[in-house]
């Protein structure tokens, strides 16, 4: 299967001399279209940094990140913002919803920033699947944590991105809700053939992914693939 994401020799160093921190120290990784990958590691292992690099939020010290046919390090900040809203769907631990926008507006926010019209049928399909159709006019702070994360998932899916990046999506949720959210994430990913990269430090959550990558001290230590179910 073709790789949608290719990471080669990725390094990110912070500071200098004695204070040098090697957040990422040579990562090579390929992720195929339609797969659900979990990246696990302890705090400070570099997993969040990796996700930021893949999402074009941070600039690597060395190495390359290629999504589809686009080399991220070659984009300037303007281009990378445009790339992000077109090609990447983000899901954050703290949901990152815009508090002054309604649920619906949040979902179509990246699409409208791009000046596009949302594919109404598709978006409504996503909304229904995530059980948000009754909440479209609510403001985010009127929703529970699980509901907010579902809105974030809908937002990530709405733009039909090349890849969805989820950073500890269940970090703020209780275990029951966590299961629901991951289940929904996995299900929608399958349904719409989406590539998902998820960071977590919770091995149980990670078990739900197709593939698990473990990072320690900025390097990939083990890879554990599963056959597509």
């Amino acid at each position, binding site marked *: 299967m073709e790789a949608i994401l290719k990471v080669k020799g990725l390094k990110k160093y912070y500071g200098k001399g004695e204070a040098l921190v090697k957040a990422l120290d040579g990562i090579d990784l390929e992720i195929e279209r339609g797969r659900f990958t979990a990246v696990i590691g302890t705090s400070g292992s570099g997993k969040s940094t990796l996700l*930021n690099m893949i999402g074009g939020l941070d600039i690597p010290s060395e190495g390359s990140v290629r999504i589809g046919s686009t080399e991220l390090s070659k984009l300037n900040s303007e281009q990378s*913002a445009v790339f992000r809203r077109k090609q990447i769907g983000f899901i954050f631990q703290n949901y*990152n919803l815009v508090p002054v926008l309604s649920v619906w507006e949040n979902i179509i926010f990246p699409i409208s920033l791009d000046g596009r019209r949302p594919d109404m049928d598709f978006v409504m399909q996503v909304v229904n699947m995530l059980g948000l159709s009754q909440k479209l006019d609510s403001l985010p702070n009127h929703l529970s944590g699980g509901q907010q994360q579902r809105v974030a998932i809908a937002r990530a899916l709405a733009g039909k991105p090349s890849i969805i990046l989820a950073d500890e999506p269940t970090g703020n949720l209780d275990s029951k809700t966590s299961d629901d959210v991951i289940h929904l994430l996995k299900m929608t990913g399958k349904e719409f053939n989406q590539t998902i990269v998820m960071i977590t430090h919770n091995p149980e959550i990670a078990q739900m992914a197709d593939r698990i990558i473990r990072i320690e001290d900025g390097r990939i230590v083990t890879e554990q693939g599963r056959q597509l179910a």
Partner: protein
Amino acid sequence: MNKKDKKTFHPILVLNRRTFHKNRGRNLVAALAVSMTTILFTTLFTLAQSMSENLVEMTFRQTGYDAQVSFKSIDPEAVKKLAAHPDVKEVGTSIVLGLAENKELAGRQVEIRWGSDAYARHSFAAPTTGRMPEASNEVALDRITLKRLGIPAELGESVTLEWRKDLTDSEADCIRSDFVLCGIFEGNESSYASMSWVARTYAEEMTGGYYNQEGIILGQYMAQVSLYSDRNIESMMGQILADTGLSDLKYGINLAYSPEMGATALQQTLPMYLGMILVFIAGYLIIYNVFQISVTTDVQFYGKLKTLGMTERQIKKLIYGQSGRLCAIGIPAGLILGWLLGVVLVPAFTGILGGNNKVSLNPVIFIGSAAFATLTVLISCMRPARLAGKVSPVEALRMNDADSRSRKTKKRKNSASLGGMAWANLWRNKKRTVIVICSLTLSLVLLCGFYAKNAAFDMEKYLSYLMIADFELADVTSDDYIGGYNPLGSTLGSSLTEHLESFEGLEAAGHLYTHQFLWQMDEQTTENLRSYYTPEVLSDWGSYDPDGPKELQKAVDSRTVSAVVYGLDGIPLEAATQPQYLLDGSFDKEAFAKGGYVLAVGPAIEAGESYPVLPAPSTGSRIELEGRNYTVMAVVCPLSPVDDGASEKGAPDSMEMHFILPSDTFRTLWPENTLRKLFVDVDDEHLDEMQGWLDNYTKDVDSSLPVESRKTKAEQYETEVRSSAVMGNAVSVIIAMVGVLNFINSMVTAIVSRKREFAMIQSVGMTKRQLCSLLIYEGLYYAAITLAVSFLVSSFLVGIVIRAMTAGGFTTFRFTLLPLAVCTPVLFIFAALIPFLCFKNLERQSIVERLRME
């Protein structure tokens, strides 16, 4: 929500609107700052515009008309041709008959004319009550003339005018015509002449249909041409005359339209434009700070938007959108309030210039102020917008209120004291601290500067220069610059002077007589003139009086000047010979009274400065005046209450030289000359009594008597000085409010944005009391630094700049920092109160709640 709504979602507009509503408190501060900035801009614009409009209006009134071009003598047929030209808007015509010579009108030129409606309108002489004359026996007059004639300003009153057909022949028959008053208009005080309109039929009857005869005023046919444009009047007029085949006609362009007028107006309004720069700085300081604070507070929000794919340009658009909303609220409010403030202040300012005070409603004021205010806002949010646009989405999650740059941390050995912590906190965001301190300092320093400048005006000095007695009376022709002073006038008759001089409470009196004649200068005096007027002095003189140097040259060449001899006693003599007015020599009162001495009046230069030579006879030399010899005792300064006045009737048009003799000597030499000026001092209890008596006298007996009193003059100037002080103070108070607003805003946001940090230090054991004192310390440091800087800068400003500005003139410089002293406790109270109130507000949430906050 229906599907249609969903399709028209403009994320930036919606975000813009909703975030704006969310941050009400912050936006209120910003909108207030914007409207205050606009208020100041509008007020200054209104003042500047009104002043220059009034200046132009005043020049119109002084020149007597507001059309662009005038013809002193033109053929009626030519007028028709001109009026038909497409570039000509309107032509007014007038036929001059002569000057009214009624005794009551002495000192005022009243021109008897027929005028077309347009001519009257453009000459500020269109009847406001009644109409222009139509029948031969009708006349329209202004209130000045009516007042002098003692005729009530009511239509239908009968008026008799006396005039002569031939002005050059003093023996010509005097014509007495009786008229009925058919129109009344306000007089033009700025002009020396009043119009007295008669009917066309009367004019035709008097002139017999002969116009523009050489050397005769009767029948002079005049025209005023109004054009559509004020620009390039000369070339346009040339074109019009060429088109109509009248190129050899002579015409005059209204002085008010000359380019020099524009320069004068600019000079008058320059302080307003300088004020605008200050306003711009004050406005920038606060608006920039408000935006900078809101961007740093919301930096995580912008980071979030960026991760979701908002580009730098879209974020900037969002910020400019916010500022646009602020402008939409703040500017209209500011425009209205500013203009109203202008309405209050304009009279104070144009009052100084004299003339009427019309408040301009020129759209330029509003467009200009709005543009300037918008510009200030845009420039103010340029940097914050760039900052928000440049936010790195990853860093945004870590950024806090402090400068993003890393700093070296100093290690302190002693334990952390509250004061030390507060001091360190102050400098966590250096830029903001500096801006707040600058903003407050600017206002305090301005306040100090304005105050010191106003305080330096010395009323006593001013009055002693303008007035030397409690009451000054003069002959009606004393200031008649047109007809000349009549030395045989009877205004100050013996019954009037005797009554005043025997008035109860009289302290002192003084008399002034003058006599003018041609004087053959001696060798020494001619030489003095020649060496005093160096080319530099002459070119300086020529720059404001082009005829001056020519007359001097003529005088030196012919060794002839027009001498004016003043006979003085009492108040004017004492005033003129005060030590500070002696330019050369010394004054010996007794010797002078004997009659063998004369005082020469020198140039109007600052006494005390030494000149190697003065343009007057040398001290100690002997001069001959009309056959008698005198020794020059001293050279004195010309003192305006003594020296001012018209030349004698029929005096030659040449340079004047003034001399002072004791009045006794004067009266024996020229006994027929009557009193020109009378000076009277009374004690304080009788001031009102004498004022009342004089008021009655001018009302009942002689309405033309010129009277000036020290008290009315003082009151008049006090109101003017006070109102200009009001202006200065209004500007600095608004700027001070901007500064305090900035201070409050900074303090509040600095505290609110650190809620979590405070919770953190509280959680590790800082007590409420300690935290509260920490915040108060911070506020007090702000105040202390501001005051220290303000004292320093104000001392410099007041001690050097204001001292230099107030040097000379009617001022006595006093070093004062009173406004700062008054502000010191106020500032300290604010500095302690704001943190305290913020802390009270903070306390409502528990530590845990605050710790959990994002």
